[in-house]
């Protein structure tokens, strides 16, 4: 086992632990922290795969923005007490876990049956500049659509959150 493999195993462990924590811990801030750990694990994996730019954007977007949004949601909904119990295994939950397990097993099964390809040893030469060029040439339309989507989401989020606030004040 060389250093890369060791690193991969460690990172996988961290990532899976983070994901498990985020989906099983009841205390919301702790679950959120676990999620951040997961995000970092994935970002580190991206770095390992030489997709530096995606890794950086992953941290910037997920940790810097999405996680902070979650923080806002947690605080605004005062949800500390409302974190629901996961301990009791009601039938719907058992079904959910079983379903997820079946899907996971199916995916793993498919993957294992295919022929394995080792990743090429040569690292790609810097992805940042090519990505930038691709975004401005071949992928310009998706890029613009994405920006429109973001604007729409921004306005939509503001409207949804605002409207109610005004109702509450006038009530």
């Amino acid at each position, binding site marked *: 086992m060389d250093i890369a493999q060791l690193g991969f195993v460690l990172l996988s462990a961290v990532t899976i632990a983070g994901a498990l924590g985020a989906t099983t811990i009841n205390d919301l*801030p702790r679950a959120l*922290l676990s999620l951040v750990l997961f995000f970092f694990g994935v970002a580190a994996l991206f770095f390992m795969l030489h997709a*530096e*730019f995606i890794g950086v*954007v992953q941290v910037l977007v997920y*940790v810097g923005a999405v996680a*902070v949004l979650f*923080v806002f949601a947690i*605080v605004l909904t005062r949800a500390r007490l409302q974190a629901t119990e996961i301990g009791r295994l009601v039938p719907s939950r058992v079904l959910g876990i079983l379903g997820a397990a079946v899907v996971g097993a199916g995916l793993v099964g498919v993957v294992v049956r295919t022929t394995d390809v080792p990743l090429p040893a040569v690292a790609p030469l810097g992805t*940042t500049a090519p990505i930038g060029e691709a975004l401005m040439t071949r992928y310009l339309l998706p890029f613009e659509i994405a920006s429109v989507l973001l604007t729409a989401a921004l306005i939509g989020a503001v409207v949804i959150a605002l409207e109610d606030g005004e109702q509450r004040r006038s009530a």
Partner: protein
Amino acid sequence: MTVTLDQGFVQAYQWILGVARDLGLPVWLVTLLSLAIPVVVVIAIYAGFFAFLTWLERKVISRIQNRYGPNRVGPFGLFQPVADGIKALTKEDVIPAGADRLLHWLAPCVVVVPAITVYALLPLGRNMTAVDTDVSVLLFFAISSVSTLALFIAGWASHNKYSMLGAMRAIAQMISYELPLVLGALPAIMVVGSMNLGAIVKAQGPQATGELFGGIAHWNLWTPWGFVGFVAFFIAGMAELNRSPFDIAEGESEIIAGFHTEYSGFKFALFFMAEYLSTIAFSALASSLYLGGWNGPAFLPSWLVLFLKIFGLIFVMMWIRSTLPRLRVDQLMAFSWKFLLPLAIVNIFATGLWHVLPRATLADKAVAWGAAALVLIPTYLLLAKLNGGRATEQRRYRYADL
């Protein structure tokens, strides 16, 4: 002689690794050593720098306020940070009843990690960048955005209403200033065409030998977009660092100490250290983006030049801190969203204009300057007018006829 001074750290590093290889140490050990040495050196030097800075800040503010400042421990009170450190270490660590003990412990650790990690990306001198990636500027912002979460954790875990208020303020403030911060850094990236800090610094270096102060004329600051970008970046950075007048997250006159109200002893010292370390790192980044980084006169080693620039910026921060009152939460947000952000966006447009226009001859330069000024000055005036509506009116007072 100057070369030795300049490259002393690098040469020593190479020498140690060479000796390690000659001794026949296994490869993994040498690799580990090559990773560990920069980490240890950077942490040691900049942590010492932090200790010195706490002393300096107290001293500078004292002079502004007609006081002496610390002068009991050692010559000129220079050992004050040592005494403070001992005190912080020996102080009782109080965890409030009802606090989330794990998160309460975790928060100061989480807040320190990004503050130290970002040093890996900074070109601290010629050939002195620990991690030289293509995306170092972006990575800097990505890593430092983690501290927001740490502040929230601290505020939440303390189980104190003031802490909670402080945490909320910290988050609101950080997400509003993240955008102007990144947009303020963008012009420098655009013009150089690289997110690599080393490349950005090199672009501001001397183009020929023997230029004044190592090519001071090539600093990004001396361009219209550079000036606006630097100011926006510096202001947003001060907000990001919770420096006064943007220190609402810990505004001691309102919410005691904000998110670190319930922290004492060494945990508090960690928060303090993280704040100062990020201040230093941010100043280093600002000087790398706009003030030519480690470029300086040839007789000074490059790392010392960067040190001096960092000190200069931090001195300005101290000066502002001891002069200005704090902004209110809504004014703080309004300033970011309604003033700084539009200005930064227009500045990007101005940068593009500057980049496209030819600047070979003096006449061309004048045209480029004029175009950039034509974009930036009206924007500034318009934004100032739009924002200055309600407040700051002229008042006239009369006297009672009694």
